[in-house]
């Protein structure tokens, strides 16, 4: 159902608002550290706490990362301003959030999903994060009915970019691909560590349904969707809820919903009528941000190759399909450059891709195993000096030791090369020992081959390459 364009004749319309924390050293408007997981209320200062008289000073690095992200999303970077979004909440120290309103930094971009599905990006703007509240006692960790609340201001003032897509997404699968691709781009440009489980990447999902050819339906916004899987589940649940509601004569009301991952349901947080009036106005403590053209172009020129381009390059290099999992996984881990390095020193790229996908999940983007060592292994296997199984054993040892002399390792394990002359004499021995099987095989009884291959393996004490034996038997049978 997730990839179906229509559900009972209804079309799904989805837009995503994704908040990402920027990977800066310090906060958006102060010098406190931007670091996850520290002792609560240690990364604070007068600006973070909203103490009277403290003023914000914009972090240039945050602006650069936001611009890098905007450019990677094909946005136009424009002169922009900051606004105050006013509301009371204990973890919002100034009782307003400094955000961007009608003049955001990045506008009018797009992101391409597999299959050339283009999702518009309306804007990607800068804003500050709030602190984090923990409500003790009471139900579901909500403030209502809790015994007391604790606030950690370490997160307050951490730079965020909110990326708002256009409502171009039509299936839950596309939504998941969008989040996944966005995450890859964030990692590629170094804008964020994009860890959904730590909250450095958070999704709000806008869902509506309509009949194709008619205007869009009323949308609901789902908050607290904290994994790619949840994005899919929340959308499917919400689409079904809306379709069932309309089908039974009901009307969808514009609401903000809360996704409860445990129960797999959405709950109403608030309806439009009691929505906050944020009283946005221009932040008088900051001046307009006008990125000059030279600065923007310098950042554009320094953008690294993006995941889509890298997948294409890796696919060409290795011969693997561009939509294959191996290509996707290796690019996401940023290990495609490494495979390139293996190929550059003469290694077999196709085998290197398999090795890296299978054995390098816990390795950094530049794995500890020297490219030359992996190249040596790929050549041993390619040239049938070792069997696939032996290659796997050697690979595990390479990873465990962070590299090594592959030839010496193969020798030490008794994986010495078996030349074709020696192999042929073993095959001849096996045929001579079991003429019955040989006759059956020649007569077209393929099952008979198993016995012959097994015999050769036994004679070689396991050193022969099964594939080579099969090939030799086939050659002999057809000659």
């Amino acid at each position, binding site marked *: 159902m997730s990839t179906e364009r229509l559900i009972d004749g209804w079309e799904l319309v989805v837009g995503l608002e994704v908040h990402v924390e920027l990977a800066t050293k310090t906060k958006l408007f102060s010098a406190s550290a931007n670091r996850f997981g520290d002792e609560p209320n240690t990364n604070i200062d*007068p600006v973070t*706490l*909203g*103490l*009277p*008289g*403290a*003023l*914000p*000073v*914009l972090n240039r690095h945050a602006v650069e990362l936001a611009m890098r992200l905007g450019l990677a999303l094909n946005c136009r970077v424009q002169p922009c301003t900051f606004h*105050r979004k*006013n509301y*009371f909440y*204990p973890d919002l*120290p*100034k*009782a*307003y959030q400094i955000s961007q309103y009608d003049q955001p930094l990045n506008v009018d971009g797009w992101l391409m999903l597999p299959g050339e599905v283009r999702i518009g990006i309306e804007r990607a703007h800068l804003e500050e994060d709030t602190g984090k509240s923990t409500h003790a006692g009471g139900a579901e960790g909500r*403030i209502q009915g809790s015994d007391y609340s604790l*606030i950690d201001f370490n997160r307050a003032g951490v730079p965020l970019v909110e990326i708002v897509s256009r409502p171009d997404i039509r299936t839950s699968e596309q939504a998941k691909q969008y989040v996944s691709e966005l995450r890859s781009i964030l990692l590629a440009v170094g804008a964020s560590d994009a860890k959904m489980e730590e909250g450095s990447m958070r999704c709000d999902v806008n869902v509506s349904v309509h009949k194709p050819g008619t205007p869009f339906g009323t949308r609901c916004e789902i908050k607290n969707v904290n994994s790619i899987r949840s994005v899919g589940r929340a959308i499917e649940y919400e689409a079904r809820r809306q379709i069932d509601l309309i089908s039974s004569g009901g009307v969808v009301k514009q609401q903000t919903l809360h996704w409860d991952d445990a129960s797999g349901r959405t709950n109403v947080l608030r309806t439009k009528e009691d929505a906050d*009036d944020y*009283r*946005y*106005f221009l932040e*008088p*403590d*900051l*001046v307009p941000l006008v990125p000059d053209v030279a600065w923007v172009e310098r950042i554009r020129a320094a953008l690294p190759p993006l995941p889509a381009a890298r997948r294409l390059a890796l696919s060409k290099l290795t011969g693997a399909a561009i939509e294959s999992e191996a290509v996707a996984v290796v690019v996401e881990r940023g290990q495609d450059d490494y495979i390139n390095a293996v190929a550059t020193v003469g290694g077999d790229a196709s085998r290197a891709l398999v090795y890296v996908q299978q054995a390098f999940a816990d390795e950094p983007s530049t794995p500890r195993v020297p490219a030359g060592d992996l190249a040596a292994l790929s050549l041993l296997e390619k040239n049938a000096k070792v069997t696939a199984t032996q290659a796997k054993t050697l690979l595990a040892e390479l990873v465990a030791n962070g590299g090594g002399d592959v030839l010496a390792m193969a020798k030490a394990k008794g994986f010495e090369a078996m030349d074709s002359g020696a192999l042929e004499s073993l095959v001849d021995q096996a045929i001579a020992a079991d003429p019955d099987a040989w006759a059956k095989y020649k007569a077209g009884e393929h099952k008979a081959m198993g016995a012959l291959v097994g015999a050769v393996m036994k004679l070689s004490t396991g050193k022969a390459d099964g594939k080579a034996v099969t090939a030799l038997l086939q050659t002999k049978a057809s000659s």
Partner: protein
Amino acid sequence: MTARRTALDIAESVKTGALSATAVLEENLSAIAARESEVHAFNLVTAERARARAARIDADVKAGKSVGRLAGVTVALKDNMCTRGVETTCSSKILAGWKPPYDATVVRRLEEEGAVIVGKTNLDEFAMGSSTENSAFGPTRNPLDTTRVPGGSSGGSAAAVAAGFSTVSLGSDTGGSIRQPAALCGLVGVKPTYGMVSRQGLIAFGSSLDQIGPFATTVADAALLMEVIAGHDPLDSTSLPRAAPDLSAVLAQGVEGMRIGRITDMPEGSSPDVLARLDTAFDALRKAGATVVDVQIPSMSYGLTAYYLVAPAEASSNLARFDGVRYGLRVDAKDLNSMYATTRSAGFGDEVKRRIMLGTYALSAGYYDAYYGKALKVRRLIADDFAKAYQDCDVILTPTSPTVAFKFGDKTSNPLAMYLCDVFTIPTNLAGHAAMSVPFGTGEAGLPVGVQVLAPALGEATMFRVAAELERAV
């Protein structure tokens, strides 16, 4: 007042050892002991800290160390400027007892130049008012006539200098809060160009309007103070990227050839004694070689309305942080929203509440365009009108206040009458320009009258030349 030592004299004498910083301070502390209970200029007199500072400066002089341009000069600070470890209240119950962990940039700059801070002065709560009657800790009295107000909102800072409690002082000016009390207390008071003086550590009222500036008994002292406190501060994003202007050097230059603007469509309502002094001021400048030219500022009378939307709108947001969660007063209640309500109800006075409500309303969905949006348009219009006027003149002269110091209670029952006190001062803040009040003789009941010199943005040097000429002419 004639025998008073100026900041320039003190700094010069302390530097050479002819006068001790301690002696200067003790003179002030004696005056405070004699009259503070009557005047109530201060929320807090920091006598012991000041004595330690003065002693340190005297020791430095003896040791031959350099002691700065304000060596031994005593300064009173409006109690909305943060002082590290020293209670800073904005004359509000909601901040009573709060000690900032940092100094405002101006405080740091004053102390680096050897100034001695004697205390924190009273103000209209959160600088909202024109008489200092809105302080949660009781009003300040005008030392020249204690039945009258000192003006506001920096009434405490004006009274402190007028009463001889300190050599000079700092106030903040959002719509006239330095210039009007300066006029009412017979002092020089300066509202610098927006961005000239750092706002870091100034507790905000209307962030796009607020500027810190000096009170002094002479134009030269005001110039000296400006030279110390002005200049770029990386901690304030709205601080202009330029050094402090050299003002002391221009004071003797006179006004020969200068064009002085007289607003022909000036808002009405000024008392005759004030208008008479203004005429005399024009005459004095003419005599000194300036020409007087007529200019029009058609939008001037809308300034008040625009100001009372823009300033409360910003204030409603700036004061939202006083929520009882992290510091200051908290009045506990059954749940979060009730705690906000009880805390803010108990912590803020009537005028502050009035402005928070005004501002919240002006920014609300459905009203923004009609109120706040329109006020911003008027703000631009005023700036445009002044820009046009300044094509024909170098500075403009107006009264600072429509009247001399008024009696307590005269305007407290009628907020609009109180707001009218600022009709001449507000346009400067809306336009981000510079202006100062210079004492220019006396009016009704022998009370001082201030003349206001208005100048375009960064026009401080011209403005100070005119002020100095007026001072010579009195």
